[in-house]
């Protein structure tokens, strides 16, 4: 039956239902069900997360200064960004200012995560939605070399290099150890690249794998260790000792130089490998402009990367801040994360209970009381759901809304807002890319646009790394070695009750932590994560979220091999790493895929 949602999307759940469902989990379950019409075009989409529960259950009664260490464990991919958001929330609640060096180092940590995440996401998850690995085996190395040299000055591009690599790949495939390549839909009709472009992309897949491990060394330098770098309320944990020679944990000249050299390599890799690849791959998919969803109408970014320590105003934040609704690019609305009427979470369609479910709750007043029940039209059992009933509760993800509106968050949202603000650093790279590809601005509002925004942002972040590293070194040379403010470290300096909010732009979008502190302990703690915004179920008014909106109207070449669904979901970089199954209507396994 067809309906139209208040946010302007036509839904029809009459056709065949395709279920993309997880088997195992790392950071959470994610599942999508779609209905396709007679032409295999998606006419209804139902996105569900089946794992998330409130972090307050674990944090209540604990020391606010330790909250970052717990929130860092929520997710294995965006550990540092949760930790940063957490220390900002506590500092906001207690009125703690951090030194300039701490601001620079935190920005470097966050930008490092951004660059690493974008690069790894593109090459190790998303590229395989566009690149056919098996086709690379039939590429001509000489032609591959010519292609690579025509798009970039990157030195690793000789015919011999690609021939060797193809040999390695062949051996790997023949040994049956396909590993990360095992779950692909190789040979799928939706793959459009010629074998040579596929081989070039696979080569860069391997180079990115090798290079990504260099980037995270920056976390080891400034966070003391990696994985799970250390954080500190009031600043950063590592002292600066410029003349030191390797004292454990201290930042000395040798380490600053190491970071500087990694930043140079990062800029080079992004500009000579990532961006040329994106453009080359994009040029073969110019007619695949599905997946825009909410991006052309409703986007939000909290902003991040403060130029000045402790100044989280729009003017100080280098990543754009604001909300665009109804596609009004000339009307960017300001955000107040403390306003009870702005950010609210609804649970009408989520497996939680509220006293009054027609209303949303601001995160400071948030509650997380699980209430798992299937709707009357669901099929299967609670432990083996065959089909969800989206008219009832159908997800463990809550529905966050901004003034009642569903919004998309993430790199594309940030670029749309930055573009609308007319900021050259966001607008010019977008215009250049679109011109090079011969595409209009509207092409930006698509799965490919989301993927392109991430690549452009990776380049932006790499240059910001350089900026803040230079700023840090200049400040140190001027004699400022301060990295932490401990004036309000002990709870006896705190008010009896306090509340605060911390925010960041995680690689995958706007992230907020809201904290209430009472008698020196955590009284309530709510994290509203980017994938909650993008992957949210419907709200009481029936508005659909970004995932559901983006899947609509996409034609599928073969519904039993839902490459198109994965492409669009992956373009959001959802923070739900899980191996997934594709099942037919009767629940029988058809194929295994990986959704993250």
């Amino acid at each position, binding site marked *: 039956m067809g309906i139209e949602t208040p946010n302007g999307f036509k839904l029809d759940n009459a056709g065949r239902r395709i279920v993309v469902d997880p088997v195992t989990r790392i950071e959470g379950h994610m599942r999508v069900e779609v209905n396709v019409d007679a032409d295999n075009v998606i006419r209804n989409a139902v996105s569900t997360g089946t794992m998330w529960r409130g972090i307050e259950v674990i944090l*209540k009664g604990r020391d606010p200064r330790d909250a970052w260490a717990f929130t860092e464990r929520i997710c294995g*991919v965006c550990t540092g960004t949760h930790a940063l958001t957490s220390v900002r929330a506590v500092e906001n609640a207690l009125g703690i200012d951090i030194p300039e060096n701490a601001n620079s180092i935190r920005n470097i940590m966050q930008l490092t995560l951004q660059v690493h995440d974008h690069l790894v996401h593109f090459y190790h998850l998303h590229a395989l939605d566009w690149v056919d690995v098996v086709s690379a085996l039939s590429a001509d190395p000489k032609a591959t070399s010519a292609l690579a040299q025509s798009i970039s000055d990157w030195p690793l591009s000789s015919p011999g290099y690609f021939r060797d690599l193809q040999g390695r790949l062949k051996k790997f495939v023949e040994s049956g150890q396909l590993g*990360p390549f095992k779950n692909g839909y190789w040979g799928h009709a939706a793959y459009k690249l010629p074998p040579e472009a596929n081989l070039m992309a696979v080569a860069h897949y391997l180079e990115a794998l090798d290079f990504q*491990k260099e980037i*995270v060394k920056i976390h080891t330098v400034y966070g003391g260790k990696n*994985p*799970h770098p250390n954080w500190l309320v009031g600043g950063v944990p590592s002292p600066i000792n410029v003349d030191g020679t390797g004292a454990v944990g201290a930042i000395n000249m040798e380490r600053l130089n190491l970071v500087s050299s990694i930043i140079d390599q990062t800029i080079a890799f992004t500009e000579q490998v990532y961006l040329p690849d994106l453009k080359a791959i994009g040029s073969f998919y110019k007619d695949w402009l599905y997946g825009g969803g909410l991006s052309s109408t409703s986007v939000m970014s909290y902003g991040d990367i403060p130029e000045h320590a402790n100044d989280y105003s729009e003017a100080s934040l280098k990543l754009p801040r604001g909300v665009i609704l109804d596609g009004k690019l000339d009307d960017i609305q300001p955000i107040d994360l403390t306003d009870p009427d702005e950010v609210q979470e609804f649970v009408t369609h989520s497996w939680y209970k509220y006293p009054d479910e027609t209303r949303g709750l601001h995160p400071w007043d948030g509650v997380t009381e699980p209430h798992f029940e299937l709707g009357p039209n669901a099929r299967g059992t609670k432990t083996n759901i065959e089909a969800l009933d989206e008219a009832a509760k159908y997800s463990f993800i809550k529905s966050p809304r901004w003034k009642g509106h569903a919004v998309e968050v993430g790199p594309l949202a940030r670029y749309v807002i930055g573009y609308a603000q007319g900021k050259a650093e966001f607008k010019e790279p977008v215009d250049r890319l679109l011109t090079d590809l011969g595409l209009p601005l509207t092409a930006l509002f698509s799965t490919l646009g989301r993927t392109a925004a991430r690549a452009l942002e990776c380049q932006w972040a790499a240059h910001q790394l350089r900026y803040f590293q230079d700023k840090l070194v200049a400040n140190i040379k001027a004699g400022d070695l301060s990295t932490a403010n401990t004036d309000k470290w002990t709870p006896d300096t705190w008010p009896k009750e306090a509340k605060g909010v911390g925010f960041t732009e995680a690689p995958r979008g706007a992230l907020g932590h809201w904290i209430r502190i009472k008698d020196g302990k955590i009284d309530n703690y709510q994290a509203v994560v980017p994938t909650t915004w993008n992957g949210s179920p419907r709200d009481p008014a029936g508005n659909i979220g970004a995932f559901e909106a983006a899947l609509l109207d996409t034609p599928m070449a073969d519904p039993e091999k839902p490459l198109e669904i994965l492409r669009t979901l992956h373009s959001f970089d959802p923070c739900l790493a899980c191996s997934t199954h594709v099942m037919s209507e009767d629940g029988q396994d058809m194929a295994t895929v990986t959704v993250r």
Partner: protein
Amino acid sequence: MTVLVLGIGNILWADEGFGVRAVEAFHRLYAMADGVDLLDGGTQGLYLVNRVAEAERLLVFDAIDYGLKPGTLKVVRGDEVPKFTGAKKMSLHQTGFQEVLSAADLLGRPPRDIALIGCQPLDLEDWGGPLTGPMAASIEPALAAAVDVLAGWGVAPARRADPLPPENGLLANDIDRAAYERPRVDAG
């Protein structure tokens, strides 16, 4: 020689945290030989490639669903590890960690030896909960199995006369096991 002893899992999900808790206890109770590193890998996936590719030998603790009695230990060695991780629902971290192993392989730098000490979980759904009884009771036996593996590699650890105090533990900021599992205020 470099040996990496890695614990993987999510401590926030009860028995999911077995691998991390095992490596934490290993550190507290044993002094490693030279060249042996202990690492709390959490759920880090590709962030771990660097460390795995640098290791000549790799020992992993993890919660693994073999469909056995909760708390049952199973040690898998060498070539069996990739084979096992390819099996359906073998490990909660199979995709993540299998990818790490094959990434090291793709880079041409897989560890020469791999041993996986798996423990059958009872409860993976208790958000914020402690290790269940059978799993907690399996930590010491898992450590004994790890001592055997390391001894076979010529790098046996030495049991400490006194366990390290909590402040010198692998996990700090209230997420060490004792602090994490203390009764919570108004939980639920």
